[in-house]
């Protein structure tokens, strides 16, 4: 069970079923204010479903989700509550190409969020904040007023980050946010995310299948396999000395210089009976 002092996000006994299929079972974790947590897993592990429940896109079948001390297991009642939740948890998605409205210039997209969360601000106040946010994610003024189609994938992902930050959320969920980027761009965005956390003290929840990215960005980790958490702990401990079989296998599957393919093969042959290859569709 999670034992974290001052948790900004706390999930207890989360369960989600789709028809007869159990997607998520008994998932509990907590993140301290300003901390960072990675939810690691492969496709079908349930990590994305957990993220969707935390952001309110899916309703949990059972279990509770609390952010900033307030329950968000049930759908929000009314606009005020929705907006309040928006100031608690924000999300940045994987695909930089579809995560922005193609008709909306960058500054207007950010302004729309500011108008929603800061109704008392004047237009010049909001404009000033837009410039600040655009600069914060490393875009220049010209890019700040461009349409998404004029931007590259990495630049669009910066816009998506700026838009999420506009609500000044406590928790930022990064749902495979750097997975679709080319390696050299990925490094830029990773560095940006690290800087932003240092500067803003924001909490990250990273959903990822990429252990190296997890190591780069988070302090704690939970490993999910087939809907349940199989291992949890400090990121470096879990990655350097994995305890659970699945985590070990995951760790051994990451290609590194000096990767011993023969050993990988042996390990896989050994574990194969444990995990029968069943059709997933």
């Amino acid at each position, binding site marked *: 069970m999670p034992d974290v002092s001052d948790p900004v996000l706390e999930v207890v006994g989360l369960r989600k079923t789709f028809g007869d299929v159990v997607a998520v079972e008994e998932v509990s974790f907590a993140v301290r204010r300003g901390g960072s947590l990675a939810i690691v897993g*492969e*496709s079908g592990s349930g990590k994305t479903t957990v993220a969707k429940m935390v952001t309110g896109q899916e309703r949990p079948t059972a279990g509770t989700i609390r952010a900033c001390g307030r329950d968000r297991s049930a759908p929000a009642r009314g606009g005020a509550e929705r907006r309040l939740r928006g100031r608690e948890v924000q999300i940045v998605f994987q695909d930089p190409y579809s995560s922005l409205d193609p008709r909306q210039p960058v500054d207007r997209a950010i302004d729309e969020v500011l108008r929603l969360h800061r109704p008392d601000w004047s237009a010049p106040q909001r404009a000033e904040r837009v410039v600040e946010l655009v600069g914060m994610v490393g875009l220049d003024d010209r890019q700040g007023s461009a349409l998404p189609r004029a931007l*590259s*994938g*990495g630049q669009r992902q910066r816009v998506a980050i700026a838009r999420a930050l506009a609500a000044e959320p406590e928790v930022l969920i990064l749902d495979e946010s750097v997975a679709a980027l*080319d*390696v*050299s*761009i*990925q*490094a*830029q965005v*990773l*560095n940006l995310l*690290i800087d932003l956390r240092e500067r803003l003290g924001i909490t990250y929840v990273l959903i990822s*299948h*990429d*252990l*190296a*990215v997890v*190591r*780069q960005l988070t302090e704690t980790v939970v490993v999910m396999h087939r809907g349940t958490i199989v291992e949890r702990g400090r990121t*470096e401990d879990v*990655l*350097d000395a994995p305890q659970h079989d699945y985590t070990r*296998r*995951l*760790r*051994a*599957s*990451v*290609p*590194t*210089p*000096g*990767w011993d*393919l*023969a050993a*990988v*093969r042996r390990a*896989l042959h050994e574990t*194969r009976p444990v995990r029968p*290859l*069943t*059709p*997933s*569709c």
Partner: protein
Amino acid sequence: MNHPESAPLLEVDRLGLDLLVGGVHRSVLRDVSFSVAQGEAVGLVGESGSGKSMTVRAIDRLLPAGARQRGSIRFDGKDVVSLSGAALRSYRAEVAVVFQDPRVHINPVRRVGDFMTEVLRTNRSVRRRDAGARAVEMLAKVGIPDGERRLDQYPHELSGGLLQRVMIASTLLTAPRLLLADEPTTALDVTTQAEIMGLLDELRSDLGLSILFITHDLDLAAAVCDRTAVMYAGEIVEVRESRLLHDDPLHPYTAALGAARPLLDRTARLVAVPGRPLSALEAPTDGCAFAGRCPYVEPTCTSAAPVLVPADGGAARCVRVEALRGTLGGVPHA
């Protein structure tokens, strides 16, 4: 397996390619040269738009209409570009392609068995039942024990990893000599990727297969390939022994790729190259394509297109290769 040291199995020499984009021919590959020896695994690494997939298409003669090709591609001494008809078909049987996404690269409305045995039945006149038996045998070899059942299934009833094994097994049925693996694991999970890579490695050692392995992942290429060529904007910028490429890169772009990738065993600030990767279509013709992002750029870099300079048993396309030697690798993370 005996490896004749003489002529390489596949030899790509100064390959150039223009594609018809919006009615105009535009260059996507320039001066691409590399070779794959019998039993050797060679990696072709690059970011999106670098031209690595087009190189595979050129080798397998799968270019879109209107493509213009320069240079030569030789397989086992024969000129590939001039092949046609039955000769082209038998060449394609010897050079098998494993595509990135088996889900779209296998006909969805035909059974797995039809897909696997099609080549044997049509080109080799093997009877359906014999072909089926061989397919089952091959499925067992790639780690699918219940082959008979699988042959009756449709592709959508199999998982991605299983389907990729089917794809590999089907290529092996014609006993190819060269496998063109075009990002065969990009669409798969990490553990499935490891299984597939282990399988490919096993096939290479057991059958003496040559492999040209296309990927965007430098670490993956380095882990399984003897030699690796790095592509940027339609050109090969460096080709080396994989181990050297990683520890002691000669080209600034190779070094940048290595330094940009986060590590599994330690946390350190990444060295990010500014800007975005140039696509092959945007590359300048009169200078180094990487010059705009290169921390070591000099005026000479943009005055003329650099050529591949032989160095340390490989080659690098950089005018400053001698000056930078030994300074790019070492500690990739500052």
